[in-house]
């Protein structure tokens, strides 16, 4: 079968793209599912006309090469794909559903098909052929928007996961040279890595000598988690800071002993308050001009000086 220079579909698009565009946009505005609060009319009209134009260019280019119109991997489709990506991404950010986004493409079918049907009423074979081809092209493009939609959603999810990872590991400064790290939720390798890095970084920034790791919010401790904790403690010690682990719940204490986790080198305290007291006590050993000599208001400072002895700080 010899192909004509320009197919019926392309010729139709060339001939009556203005009418199709007019009908199509008018219909989209009538659609009750169009959300004027999310998408302005001018924007929608702009998107529709650019899409139609790029569809026409792509079909014309592919036909010149006699390529397969329904193959989305052809480079002639790239421009259209880019356009759809932009549209799809902006709609997913605005809160449209995937079917609403794909519906943007599907709604073109109705106008295209009714026009084809009106013109080819006399030859049902050609009618069927043209409609099925146009159908295949539009289906392919609509599916592509869904794909992009999903991909951009996944990117959002991944970004949120990352943000949650950072949010969930705040390092707070409790006192001069005392840091606290309240850990909440299950610890896995990736999280512990982030925790470890942010704690160590903060130790350098603040010059803190004591870091309290509070695991009250950690529901379970297994050997892996315990090992991560011990690694953090060891790394902090290498940098010259002491770590205290606090908030060990009775069940966790039992589990740790049953798992034979060796915590003999680590100071452990039942509550954050106890750990804080120990931290103040340790820092009280470090001679610091002004702190102990000048009576400062505030109970906690008094506690610090209460525990302060001239003996040197000793690292076991």
């Amino acid at each position, binding site marked *: 079968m010899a192909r004509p220079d320009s197919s019926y579909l392309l010729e139709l698009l060339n001939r009556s793209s203005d009418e199709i565009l007019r009908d199509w946009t008018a219909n989209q505005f009538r659609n009750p599912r169009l959300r004027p609060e999310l998408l302005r009319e001018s924007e929608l009209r702009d998107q529709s006309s650019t899409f139609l134009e790029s569809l026409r260019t792509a079909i014309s280019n592919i036909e010149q090469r006699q390529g397969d119109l329904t193959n989305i991997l052809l480079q002639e489709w790239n421009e259209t794909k880019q356009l759809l990506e932009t549209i799809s991404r902006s709609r997913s950010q605005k809160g449209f559903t995937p079917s609403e986004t794909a519906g943007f493409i599907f709604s073109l079918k109705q106008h295209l098909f009714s026009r084809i049907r009106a013109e080819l009423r006399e030859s049902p074979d050609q009618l069927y052929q043209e409609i099925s081809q146009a159908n295949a092209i539009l289906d392919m493009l609509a599916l592509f928007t869904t794909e992009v939609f999903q991909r951009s959603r996944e990117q959002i999810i991944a970004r949120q996961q990352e943000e949650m990872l950072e949010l969930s590991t705040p390092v707070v400064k409790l006192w001069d040279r005392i840091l606290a790290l309240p850990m909440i939720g299950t610890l896995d390798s990736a999280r512990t890595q982030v925790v*470890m*890095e942010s704690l*160590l*970084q903060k*130790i*350098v920034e603040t*010059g*803190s*000598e004591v870091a309290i790791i509070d695991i009250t919010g950690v529901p379970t401790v297994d050997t892996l988690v315990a090992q991560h904790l011990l*690694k953090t403690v*060891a*790394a*902090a*010690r*290498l*940098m*010259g*800071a002491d770590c205290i682990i606090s908030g060990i719940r009775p069940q966790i204490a039992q589990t740790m002993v049953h798992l034979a986790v060796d915590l003999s*080198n680590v100071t452990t305290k039942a509550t954050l308050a106890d750990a804080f007291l120990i931290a103040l006590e340790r820092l009280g050993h*470090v*001679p610091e001009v002004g702190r102990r000599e000048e009576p400062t208001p505030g109970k906690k400072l008094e506690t610090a000086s209460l525990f302060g002895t001239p*003996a*040197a*700080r*000793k*690292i076991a």
Partner: protein
Amino acid sequence: MDRIPILKLGNFLLVTIQVDMYDQLAITLQDDLTSKIVQAGAKGVLIDISSLEVVDSFMGRMLANISEMTRVLDANTVVVGMRPAVAITLVELGLSLPGVQTALSVDKGMALLNAMREERPSEGLRERKPGAA
């Protein structure tokens, strides 16, 4: 050949590692440091590794070795200013350097060395105090 300078600071020696360490340099440092401790009669060694960005198992072992050697020579070693990345690497390598004293900065390391000296009963500082006997 490159050498890492060893500075004498009162009774202590200060070693600041500012270049990337390679094995030969580390071995030279061990030699130099041990002879300098004996020669100067130093009571403490401060190793500042705050500029050190890359560390391997050999370097970790070297730090442990130096610390042990100075202990045998009756001096204390404090490693100061280790970067977080270096600390993580050493721990991941399984080298938590249990025998090495550490401090956050040269200042704090110096205070720690002073404190350790005062603690030693043989240093005589305490015996000489009037009320101690």
